[in-house]
């Protein structure tokens, strides 16, 4: 018996797929898979290298199981560890910042010059800030305080470069492409080093942040302006901000409701 191969193949394919029905749950399963990936909640058994978080210099993204992970299947069982995807980190950091009711003490410096000391009530957003502004006499102290609702109620200074509060950092992490550098020690804690780039009126800003691996709260942000800067901005090329998350004791809460000394006057602000 002689058949035309192409006709036989065509008919065979039609026969093979004639009773195909799309399972009703297929779309829902795809959507669930998409949401899990987007939220970074997929948990995989990983190779030792990634499980220990030493993903140095690599953007970590959920994807097909890597070759080392496949080979790991034939090895003795490893500790199951969550994949530190960008999405997973974002979700953790956002939840930690939004859920915090700590008193946040943040210190800020440009270069080697300490300029800012801020106390923030993470529950209400209320803050009290002391800002040391250089002038012709050395330094001028400026206070920046908020109203009860956390909006600016006191003195504001000249526009700054890109100083980030934790909530601003949270928003920035959501809207920028971030890269996970890996785990690093900072102030005796295990942290995850994350970086991204953003823009400012002075050009590109390279932002590095270290997030506590246990609490998912940021401990340090370093912002560096890239490219040429005008002379008056040279001192502002690098800015370091350290965060200290303190318990909600009456003493710490009181730090956020301090009053500006009487000799200072309100000059401008919202």
């Amino acid at each position: 018996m002689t058949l035309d191969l192409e006709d036989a193949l065509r008919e065979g394919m039609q026969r093979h797929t004639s009773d195909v029905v799309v399972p009703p749950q297929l779309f829902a399963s795809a959507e669930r898979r998409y949401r899990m990936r987007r939220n970074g909640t997929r948990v995989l058994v990983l190779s030792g290298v990634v499980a220990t978080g030493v993903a140095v210099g690599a953007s970590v993204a959920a994807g097909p199981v890597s070759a080392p992970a496949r080979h790991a299947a034939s090895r003795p069982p490893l500790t199951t560890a969550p994949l530190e995807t960008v999405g997973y980190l974002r979700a953790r950091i956002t939840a930690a910042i939004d859920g915090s009711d700590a008193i946040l003490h943040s210190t800020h410096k440009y270069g080697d010059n300490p300029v800012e000391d801020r106390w923030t009530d993470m529950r209400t957003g209320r803050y009290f800030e002391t800002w040391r502004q250089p002038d012709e006499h050395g330094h001028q102290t400026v206070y920046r305080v908020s109203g009860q609702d956390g909006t600016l109620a006191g003195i504001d200074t000249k526009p700054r470069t890109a100083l980030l509060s934790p909530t601003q950092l949270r928003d920035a992490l959501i809207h920028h492409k971030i890269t996970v550098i890996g785990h690093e020690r900072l102030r005796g804690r295990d942290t995850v080093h994350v970086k991204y780039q953003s823009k400012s009126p002075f050009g590109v800003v390279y932002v590095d942040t270290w997030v506590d691996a246990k609490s998912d709260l940021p401990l340090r942000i370093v912002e560096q302006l890239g490219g040429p800067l005008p002379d008056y901005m040279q001192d502002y090329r690098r800015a370091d901000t350290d965060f200290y998350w303190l318990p909600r004791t009456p003493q710490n809460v009181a730090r956020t409701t301090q009053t500006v000394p009487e000799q200072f006057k309100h000059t401008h602000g919202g």
Partner: protein
Amino acid sequence: VSRQRSFAELESFLAVRGRALLGSAILLTGSREAGEDLLQHALERVMRQWYRLDGDPEGYLRRTMYNLATDRWRGLGRRREALARVPVSDRVGDHADAVDLRDALVRALRLVSPQQRAVLVLRYWEQQSESEIARTLGCSIGTVKSAASRGLKRLRDITGADLVIRV
């Protein structure tokens, strides 16, 4: 356009075209379960790009599915697995009737290269022209022609049947 509404549009599209796409996926992978998995995986990829896609999603979904099929097959060494799974009885001799032969040809698809299989499915199941296949797979028309020719020859060799290839 809200996320919910957009995905509802994608779901409606699947209700209309899902059967044809799933048929392709089954032919590409060799089994119903693997075909469903492939289509689901391709849909998830499309969801990731959904807000950036303009126009008809079918072309993008199909391209994604074919690329995933060839990558996955190559990456997981499925070809070796398939070779090991196909029993000797799948071979069809001169005495086999036409129906068995057609079934054997489809089963033998698992044994040709991923690119040859993709070309054969696009050509004989989806009835695409050579230029359309080249666009879908991102290769030249010459590559499509040679992959189709080699794929058909391989199918004939595997099945061992008396088949005529038109040139």
